[in-house]
């Protein structure tokens, strides 16, 4: 069987997202399988475990539901390894979850009877800001799994923005991937331009933080602490303003038109922001540009300001607006490449899924338009900004194409951070 024929059956994609792990072979077609990227560490002091022997150290997938106990316990025992896109070098519990999830994914697609099967060509994808030790650990995990199961013929790791660009058939572009905890801006020109990557310490979680503060101000202090409710309110009433000052003025002038009311399904709870409904524009603005003066009053009342933080070797900037971040990333690239990069900006990730209700057109805008406006403020015109189609699966699709197309003979190079890593002689 030729390499191409083999890869048509046994190319395998793995996307380690902040909330979900998307995985599966090329034969899955358009969509991979999805499980939550999390693991539960059962309490080993439980009487049953003492008597019947140690349980599995970490539980993943649907089985977690059987173990969930009190809320207080969840924070300690339920681990989301990729919450920030970067796992600390010595966060052993997070790495255990990654290993268990990876093993589960590969075992799930083990061919039943095929004597020609020698393992998958696995293409995994990590955050663009993942440091080198994350690559090393992930290779180690695949090596161990291969030693135990024979399921990995070769493995490679690519940054998520490169996978997005591949899935969208765009060799030259800027990819902005914005998840729950952070945002990565990565120029791509046939390769990810690693030295130009800009990382932001801001994501969907920050929009939740300001939504919580708005609920508190509107008299819903009790609900402001419930993460699920806060997220539902953000998704239901949050808007991205074309211009924040104008949007707030319009909302205050016509409070009934902009009134934000949310009914929580399956409960008796109805949230009505009433006179505070203008604040719904703050939710979207905060994601794109937290520097507006309106946010100062929130910071002074104790809402944490997005800070510059260093995770691993990477500095995540707190207060840079998205326009500045794109300009900074592009300007780290060669001048002649810059116009081509501005020509196509791809937005990917759950944090760009903002709706524009028809009645608010003109005042509220979608993510692509907001990015264009921010870039225009910086003097960058003629930009094409696109939302990734099916953003949930685009990284996995990029992995599949990469794994299929990159030749087997191209061996892993730590210098270029590309190629196939093989563990067998």
């Amino acid at each position, binding site marked *: 069987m030729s390499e*191409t024929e083999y890869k048509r059956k046994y190319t395998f994609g793995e996307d380690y997202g902040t909330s979900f792990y998307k995985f599966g072979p090329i034969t899955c077609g358009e969509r991979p399988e999805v499980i939550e990227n999390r693991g539960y560490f059962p309490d080993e002091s439980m009487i049953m475990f003492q008597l*019947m022997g140690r349980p599995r150290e970490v539980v993943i997938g649907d089985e977690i539901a059987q173990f969930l106990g009190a809320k207080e316990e969840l924070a300690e025992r339920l681990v989301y390894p990729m919450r920030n896109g970067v796992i600390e070098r010595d966060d052993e519990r997070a790495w255990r979850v990654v290993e268990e999830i990876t093993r589960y994914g590969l075992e799930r697609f083990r061919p039943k009877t095929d004597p020609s099967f020698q393992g998958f060509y696995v293409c995994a994808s990590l955050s663009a800001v993942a440091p080198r030790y994350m690559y090393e650990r992930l290779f180690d995990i695949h090596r161990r799994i291969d030693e135990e199961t024979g399921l990995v013929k070769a493995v490679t790791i690519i940054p998520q923005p490169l996978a997005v660009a591949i899935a969208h058939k765009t060799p030259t572009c800027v990819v902005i991937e914005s998840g729950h905890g952070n945002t990565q801006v990565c120029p791509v*020109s*046939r390769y990810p331009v690693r030295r130009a990557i800009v990382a932001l310490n801001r994501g969907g979680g920050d929009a939740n933080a300001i939504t919580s503060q708005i609920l508190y101000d509107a008299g819903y202090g009790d609900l402001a602490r419930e993460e699920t409710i806060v997220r539902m309110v953000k998704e239901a009433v949050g808007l991205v303003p074309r211009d924040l000052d104008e949007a707030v003025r319009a909302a205050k002038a016509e409070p009934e038109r902009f009134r934000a009311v949310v009914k929580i399904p399956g409960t008796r709870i109805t949230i009505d922001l009433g006179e505070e409904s203008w604040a719904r524009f703050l939710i979207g603005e905060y994601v794109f540009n937290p520097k507006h003066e309106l946010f100062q009053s929130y910071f002074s009342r104790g809402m944490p300001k997005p800070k510059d933080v260093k995770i691993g070797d990477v500095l995540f900037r707190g207060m840079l607006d998205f326009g500045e971040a794109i300009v900074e990333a592009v300007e780290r690239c060669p001048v002649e490449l810059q116009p081509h990069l501005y020509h196509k900006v791809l937005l990917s990730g759950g944090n760009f899924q903002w709706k524009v209700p028809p009645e608010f057109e003109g005042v509220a805008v979608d993510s692509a338009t907001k990015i264009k406006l921010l870039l225009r403020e910086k003097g960058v015109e003629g930009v094409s900004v696109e939302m990734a189609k099916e953003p949930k699966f685009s990284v996995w699709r990029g992995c599949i194409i990469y794994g299929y*197309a990159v030749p087997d003979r191209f061996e892993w190079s730590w210098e270029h951070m590309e190629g196939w890593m093989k563990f067998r002689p």
Partner: protein
Amino acid sequence: MIVMEGLRKAVEEWSASRGLRPLSQEELGLPDGSPDMAFSGPKGITFVLLLGEKALGDRRYFMEVVMRASSLRDKCNFLYLAAPKLVAPFVDTEVLKKHGIGLLVVGDEGVVEALASPYRPISAGRQEKAPQVSLEALNEVLSRLSALEERLSALEREVLSVRPALSELSALRGLGEQVRALSARLDALTRRVDALSASLARPTALTAPTAPSPPTTPPSAGQPELEGLPSFFKDNPWLEILARRGQDEVPA
């Protein structure tokens, strides 16, 4: 809540539905300890031990049931723990499996065989003492040992003589790698030739020669190699770009 009587009844119904006949304590004839329930069937003897909801809070009780199960394993062909649904999630099936014990989960919908018990033959008893080792047998073992030592020395001599041939073989391994590399390059070339022939076959390419061509040649949708692959492969210029990885480009 399922009390012990409920458990017992549910297991009785389950066993009856499988054609198993209940066995009395007299029929069992086990003076050292007996199971909560026992059945006889065409495949052999089945024992069942009931694990009540008391196990959730009473460590001693739970321990006793497990110990009893363990002590009865070689006295029956099939052995099960029967537990209410509430208790079942706390029982580690991996450990049960290891010890050849099955698990019956009893809920409102009846009995579910969550883990099948493997068949094990009933032990004839362990009363017989180890046989005495005779001097003759000992001598025979010693003579076989010396024969084995001789064979080992002969094998060592063989290995030493084969070593030069092995080093020649390792030189050939390099040749194998070269052949593999050539085969991979041939694959890539085949892909590119397919892409080129497909694009030449398209009439538009002939009728509109002045149209600006894209910087890379994406594989055609009609390319036989891509047939049956997901839609995101169609007209994807990255296929061509990635196929050249490791040949002529280096990342920025």
